[in-house]
């Protein structure tokens, strides 16, 4: 293991530990709920970093996986509530309002919480594999991947809003029970949910790190930098891309489930275009080519957003400030905060004489070979 990797793992561990220790200092339920929301979005941005920063797939529809996960969890939790009008085995309230007589078949398995939790990860993964198969087997690259994922996001969003009878439509699925697993109850406004989310964050972060450090992870980065060259070496580029795309979707689905627990509802806004683009922004601010960077980027940006929107002086102008900051980061810190930190570590390492060569992997992103493609 190289020295750089050791430093990296130590850094990741330190950040996760800090996050896990927060509730011992802040025991305010409202604050913890707010923080857990930021952490969930951090997981989401980290998932995008895996597909965008490491594989060069700019997924503008990251919110699709997020929303699917969140709806799976909401469906499971909804069936745990006792409907007011129709009794204990009755239908969810919005179905009653929409004159649905029997529970639709695809709702049935969600009576089992295990199924709901598995579905929250597997539905986005399967969806991503199918979509990835469709996109990458056709060797669609660059901006067209971005457009397709964006279009698919809009389609899924429209369908969910349109099928009000089964999905709660515009209002989403509200009024949920609390998640109970292994005798533990996860209250959105309690430290238990915070710990759950912080643990999931730690696990998914190290899971993603393990992927990037594996041989497959190296190939993913090679695909990002020179797709054709990897193909000529005989690697199944589409297969690797599908893998990264699906892994990213699974993590995003997990984040979606956690988001439902924190927010206590699922709504079509979780699959909206603005949210999906915000994820890209967080990722870029934090540093797309760093899993931890993307996570922290999301936490910092949403945290600052939350703080500014609550303060009196910035109530009206915070969006303006955020917009300005985004532009500034894109112009002056193209690799995000992590890029700046990396340069710092690099300088420290080179002073002691090692770790220089490895950094060469961090080539500028060439995810958009707009002109190059035409030349080929």
């Amino acid at each position, binding site marked *: 293991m190289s020295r750089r990797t050791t430093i990296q793992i130590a850094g990741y561990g330190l950040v996760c530990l800090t996050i896990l220790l927060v509730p011992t200092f802040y025991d305010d339920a409202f604050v913890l709920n707010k923080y857990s929301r930021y952490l969930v979005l951090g997981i989401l941005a980290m998932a995008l970093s895996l597909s965008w920063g490491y594989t060069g797939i700019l997924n503008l529809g990251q919110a699709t996986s997020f929303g699917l996960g969140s709806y799976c969890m909401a469906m499971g939790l909804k069936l745990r509530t006792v409907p007011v009008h129709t009794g204990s085995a009755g239908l969810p309230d919005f179905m009653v309002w929409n004159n649905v007589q029997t529970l639709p078949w695809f709702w049935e398995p969600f009576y089992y919480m295990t199924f709901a939790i598995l579905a929250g990860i597997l539905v986005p993964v399967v969806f991503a594999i199918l979509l990835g198969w469709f996109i990458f087997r056709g060797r669609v690259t660059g901006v067209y991947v971005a457009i397709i994922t964006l279009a698919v996001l809009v389609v899924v969003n429209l369908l969910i809003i*349109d099928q009000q009878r089964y999905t709660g439509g515009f209002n989403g699925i509200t009024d949920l029970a609390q998640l109970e697993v292994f005798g533990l109850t996860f209250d959105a406004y309690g430290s238990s949910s915070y710990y759950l989310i912080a643990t999931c964050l730690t696990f998914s972060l190290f899971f993603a790190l393990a992927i990037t450090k594996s041989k497959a992870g190296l190939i993913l980065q090679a695909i990002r930098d020179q797709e054709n060259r990897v193909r000529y070496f005989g690697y199944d580029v589409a297969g690797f891309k599908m893998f990264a795309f699906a892994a990213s979707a699974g993590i995003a689905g997990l984040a979606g489930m956690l988001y439902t627990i924190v927010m206590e509802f699922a709504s079509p806004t979780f699959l909206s*275009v603005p949210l999906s683009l915000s994820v890209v922004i967080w990722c870029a601010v934090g540093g797309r080519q760093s899993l931890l960077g993307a996570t922290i980027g999301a936490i910092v940006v949403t945290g600052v957003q939350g703080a500014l929107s609550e303060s009196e002086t910035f109530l009206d102008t915070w969006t303006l400030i955020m917009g300005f*900051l985004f*532009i500034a980061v894109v*112009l002056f810190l193209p690799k995000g905060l992590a890029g700046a930190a990396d340069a710092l570590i690099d300088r420290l390492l080179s002073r002691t004489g090692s770790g220089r060569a490895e950094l060469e992997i961090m080539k500028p992103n060439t995810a958009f070979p707009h002109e190059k493609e035409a030349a080929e």
Partner: protein
Amino acid sequence: MDILAAQIVTGLSIASILLLVALGLAIIYGTTGVINMAHGEFVMLGAYSAWFLQTFVGLSLIESLVPIFAMVAALGWIAERLVIRHLYRRPLDTILATWGIGVMAQQAIRLSAGGELRYVQMPPAMANSISILGIEVSAFRAFVLVLAIALFALTWYLMYRTSVGMKLRAITQNREIASCFGINSNRIYSLTFAYGAGLAGLAGALVSPLKSVSPEMGTTYVVDAFMVVVLGGVESLIGTIASSAILGQLNGFLAFYSNDTIAKACVLVAIVIVIRFRPQGLFAAKVRA
């Protein structure tokens, strides 16, 4: 037969609005490769300019078209000079930067004009409907269609019959070589961006009487416009007009058979499939690079 004709007219009306919004985007994207997420906000700014000029200056919509074009074009020019200019080598990052510009534009409007819906009066002379070949058509919608085609023709003329257009096409094909021949590519890019933004502003002004004006109105347009550009094929003006027509008609017909939401979803699915099998678009121009 009447229903069919009415459907075609509805489709044409949708298509004309799509064309207006997409035209500016197609020029900017086709020439500079900048993915302008703020395009919807330029549309929105055009609509607000129309509202402002009507409410506070007292200009009618038709009279205010020229000032609106100038104003929004100037804003586009400023955005290009300050931000986008520095990102031509990183086209991907333009998504992020222009999104930031869009967010700022939205908030600036919310702070100055308020977040509530605004309404723009139709020009009184065009409030009625006229009869063309026995079909009742709203005069204003017909006017929008005619103007969209006129703007398309103007753009085509600028691109293919003027020296600026020739320089622009040269830069599109190979920026470095074009620069070697003494073409000031920075200046051409600024002009292109300003022109594209101005067109978006006009689009916003023209749709403002048809739909309510709000700070968020741009978001829906930018997605639709991108679909038109991608479907039509980058660097192909004919493709832009053809794909607006196809998408408009498809949207109109599908909405007639089901509802608006499903129609939109179906159209998007169709576009996704087209991109998958023909990423260069349906009407891609042969470009030698």
